[in-house]
């Protein structure tokens, strides 16, 4: 895992001092809210319905146990004993006091963490594949490239006041586990025929009001020019992105209006110019960072078998664990989606426990996934049963990865001032209603947003739910057929929306249509793609 040196530490320490000064000026009345707002946003502090929310960055979703334990302690010390893991691999706290925010940042800085640019119109925390370093199918570990981007994007002097927020993701395998093409810039690290590494740039994806799948604008930027190319992409956007309407200000709209070819032409011209400016970190810097991501000292010659005699354990292992590149090891996903729970929430005790389990069982490493779960990436198969028993005894053993209970939901109207409808109660009801049939239904990704800003990724759900306000009443639209990953597609609305109880029944009906039409090993999404919308509409409205 990456370790800060004196420079990285000085950056976060300076940021704490800067923000403490800004908060002091705000509280003393020298800094008006209008000027303070973007500053607090760039330090992760967002004003919700009832209190401030603090979003802490977990760069590319990777954490060690000491960091995880501090995240648990912060939940106790400054919040109400809970943390909420987010769809961008971060964690947020929903009940924060402005005057305590600088102290939280100081606590984070002591374990090499921060909240740099987790909100605001700037380059956000860069996300990656939650199985990086463990997955068998990666070309390289994508995290060193994400760390290079983290440093480049931190307090970038030119890009703190972009037209709108800017999200980047880096992956290094053909199986996209980070929804890369739904980012402002998605980078896939690839190898060409000569065996050289390069970065394929996908630019202009996103969800929100106008969901778009990013087109590839350059299939192979030499790896030693990745930062320069990113800077070119950003500069064209900063100069020409729309600023007259915040709903049309994301880069996807610029690319849509200019056309991909014209945007690409401008980026290539800017790139040619920037290559003369020597802004790219040297290869030595990438090598320095890579050394931190070397494999942990895996044992060899250990058992590659699981004892499956406990049926509950076997079900969990089959559902929540992924094959590891190293024989004898397995990657474990801890579901933060217990039946009837709040998706992505964990108590302070659970957070600290997961940190401790990472220390004992996973070479001190954890990952946060964009589906709001936690991964222990490197667990010995011989230890898996003991680990599961501890997880299960602490409400962390739900066997539902990528099943209907493993849903993504935004905070919705329970917390968020932008929301039109509540998401959490809908998620809880669906979870409770369908839990008994979960194993039968199989892989089904359900995603719920409480407004068209789409923080719950409803466009990318096999089943998506969008909460809207219809004449003062919460109403829920149903979407089918969305998907992230290599075969990214956007969901289609079935028809008129439903009330809160109606949407729960509608989801159940959609699963029944699937089960009645399923052929062979088809997943819900496969059946939908084969039979189309009509049979679902018939069942829902017929």
């Amino acid at each position, binding site marked *: 895992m990456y370790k800060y040196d004196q420079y990285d530490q000085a950056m976060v320490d300076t940021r704490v001092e800067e923000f403490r000064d800004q908060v002091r000026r705000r509280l003393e009345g020298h800094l008006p809210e209008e*000027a303070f707002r973007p500053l607090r946003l760039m330090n992760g502090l967002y004003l919700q319905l009832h209190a401030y929310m603090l979003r802490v960055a977990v760069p590319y979703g990777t954490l060690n146990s000491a960091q995880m334990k501090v995240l648990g302690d912060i939940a106790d010390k400054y919040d109400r004993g809970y943390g909420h893991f987010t769809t961008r691999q971060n964690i947020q706290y929903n009940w924060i006091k402005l005057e305590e925010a600088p102290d939280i940042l100081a606590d984070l800085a002591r374990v090499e963490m921060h909240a740099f640019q987790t909100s605001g119109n700037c380059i956000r925390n860069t996300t990656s594949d939650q199985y990086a370093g463990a997955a068998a199918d990666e070309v390289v570990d994508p995290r060193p490239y994400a760390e290079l981007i983290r440093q480049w994007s931190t307090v970038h002097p030119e890009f703190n006041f972009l037209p709108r927020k800017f999200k980047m993701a880096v992956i290094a395998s053909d199986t996209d586990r980070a929804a890369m093409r739904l980012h402002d810039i998605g980078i896939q690290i690839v190898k060409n025929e000569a065996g050289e590494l390069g970065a394929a740039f996908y630019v202009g994806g996103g969800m929100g009001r106008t969901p778009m799948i990013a087109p590839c604008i350059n299939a192979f930027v030499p790896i030693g020019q990745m930062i320069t190319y990113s800077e070119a992409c950003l500069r064209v956007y900063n100069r020409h992105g729309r600023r007259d309407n915040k709903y049309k200000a994301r880069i996807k709209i610029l690319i849509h209006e200019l056309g991909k070819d014209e945007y690409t032409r401008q980026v290539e011209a800017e790139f040619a110019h920037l290559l003369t400016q*020597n802004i790219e970190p040297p290869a030595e810097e990438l090598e320095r960072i890579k050394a931190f991501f070397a494999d942990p000292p895996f044992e060899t010659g250990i058992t590659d078998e699981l004892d499956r005699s406990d049926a509950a354990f076997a079900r969990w292992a089959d559902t929540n664990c992924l094959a590891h590149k190293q024989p004898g090891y397995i990657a474990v996903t801890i579901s933060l989606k217990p039946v009837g729970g709040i998706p992505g929430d964990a108590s302070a005790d659970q957070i600290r426990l997961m940190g401790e389990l990472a220390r004992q069982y996973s070479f001190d490493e954890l990952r946060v996934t964009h589906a709001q779960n936690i991964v222990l990436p490197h667990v010995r198969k011989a230890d898996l049963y003991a680990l599961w028993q501890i997880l299960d005894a602490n409400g962390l053993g739900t066997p539902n990865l990528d099943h209907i209970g493993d849903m993504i939901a935004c905070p919705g109207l329970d917390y968020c001032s932008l929301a039109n409808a509540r998401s959490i109660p809908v998620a809880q009801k669906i979870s409770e209603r369908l839990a008994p049939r979960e194993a039968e239904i199989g892989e089904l990704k359900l995603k719920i947003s409480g407004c068209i800003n789409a923080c719950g990724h409803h466009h990318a759900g096999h089943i998506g739910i969008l909460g809207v306000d219809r004449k003062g009443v919460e109403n829920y639209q149903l979407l089918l057929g969305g998907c992230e990953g290599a075969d990214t597609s956007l969901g289609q609305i079935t028809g008129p929306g439903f009330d809160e109880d109606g949407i729960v029944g509608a989801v159940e009906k959609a699963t029944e249509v699937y089960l009645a039409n399923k052929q062979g090993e088809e997943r819900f999404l496969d059946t939908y793609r084969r039979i189309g919308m009509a049979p679902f509409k018939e069942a829902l409205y017929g």
Partner: protein
Amino acid sequence: MAEVQYRFRDDEPVADPGVTVDSFGAQSNAAAVRLEPGDDARALLPHLERLRLVEVNFPVFGDGRGYSSARILREAGYAGELRAVGQVLVDQIALMRRCGFDSFAPDQPLEPADAEAAFARWADVYQPTTDGRAPVWAKRHPGAVNA
């Protein structure tokens, strides 16, 4: 017109206010120009030799186009005065310095103690710009050059 509150240059300031980009093209003797956020800084590149002052206006501090305008001029070798004008706030001046601004004429004068703290705050920077400061990666790898 707002007073210049900070100026990091020793040469004699240009007395004339900047003209618009449109009229600059027509007035072959003007030495000062004012860039609005929507103006293309690259339109000035053929005239850098005779330019002594470029004012970059920030009508609202949240419009960040002026940062790119400044870097484009400096990257092209512009060595004259680059002045940030308009809604120039104390929490943005360190970023502006990095992008090449070397004078500041805020609509509302800055609190001197806050401004001095802001200019001095960041001992290290991650990105190279034309301000001459060595980025962190250069300090980590003295003598390394990118291929």
